[in-house]
């Protein structure tokens, strides 16, 4: 069915997207009766409207944050780029590595966007999902991503309210920032290949990104 006819069928109007998030695709979920933003690897989304955020994870992590006080929350979807300089302890070097700097950037981008919508940092609640070892042939990328996410939460003093990470299955996560509710479905192995392909492409994208050289000195 075409997107347009689905939108007409939605009994609830789509809330306007927060500034900067207009391009994230949102669809009406008739089964659960809500709008849902669908995020892909490398993307993130924040909202203060009663809508859901949905993503499918293999070895990637989705961090879900919310401020119960303001009803603002969001989700990201990221993995660490390849980094030959370290093992599974992503925080072993206090100056960070290209990996931890990228991961911190992914987390900070999400947190900053939520703060801009009115969330308060000291009230943020964190839920972590993903990091599955979805292909036996790949090195355990999921484990590195999990180690990073736990380390980040600890250093930043963000309490982890819930998590479902690791194991060998991909996951479909639907998060409701207003209530903190999570619908999590572990996917079957038959769906793994397509998810792994998407992640490999994402991983290649972030690996070829040169370290950020965007420096400007003003006159």
């Amino acid at each position, binding site marked *: 069915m075409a997107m347009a006819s689905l939108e007409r069928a939605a009994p609830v109007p789509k809330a306007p997207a927060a500034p900067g998030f207009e391009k994230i695709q949102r669809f009406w979920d008739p089964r659960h009766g809500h709008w849902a933003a669908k995020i892909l690897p490398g993307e993130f989304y924040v909202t203060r409207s009663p809508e859901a955020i949905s993503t499918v994870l293999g070895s990637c992590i989705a961090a879900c944050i919310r401020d119960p006080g303001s009803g603002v929350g969001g989700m990201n979807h990221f993995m660490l780029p390849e980094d030959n300089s370290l093992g599974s302890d992503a925080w072993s070097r206090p100056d960070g590595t290209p990996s931890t700097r990228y991961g*911190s950037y992914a987390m900070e981008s999400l947190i*900053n966007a939520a703060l*801009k919508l009115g969330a308060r940092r000291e009230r943020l609640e964190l839920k972590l999902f993903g990091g599955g070892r979805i292909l036996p042939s790949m090195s355990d990328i999921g484990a590195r991503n999990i180690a990073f996410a736990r380390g980040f939460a600890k250093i930043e003093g963000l309490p982890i309210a819930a998590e479902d990470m690791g194991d060998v299955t991909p996951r479909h996560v639907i998060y409701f920032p207003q209530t903190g509710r999570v619908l999590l479905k572990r996917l079957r192995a038959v769906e793994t290949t397509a998810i792994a392909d998407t992640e490999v492409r994402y991983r290649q994208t972030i690996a070829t990104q040169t370290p*950020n050289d*965007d420096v400007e000195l*003003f006159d």
Partner: protein
Amino acid sequence: MAATILAVDDSASMRQMVGFTLRRAGYEVVEAEDGVEALEFAREHSVDLVLTDVNMPRMDGITLVRELRALGTYKFVPMLVLTTEAGPEKKLQGKQAGATGWLVKPFNPDKLLATIAKVL
């Protein structure tokens, strides 16, 4: 004597990574969690360079730069902004507030040190 840098970021992991990078390069580093804390320190002490994030609780980095420039003692101190914000509008705000330069995260330690050396 080693130059002293006031590093301001609300993220503890960023403070850790930036602080370690600067100390290893031989700088003295004073850390602050937001603009208010940085400004309180700056009223009492002088430093050689300020490196600040933009999005922080209580007082953002652009306001901090503006407030610091208003202090007589910080009129000519180099102030670098290190932020996730890459948009031209924020950059312009930073420039107008009196920032010396703008660096976008995820930060590259070598580039950060080279930029600091250039403006000191």
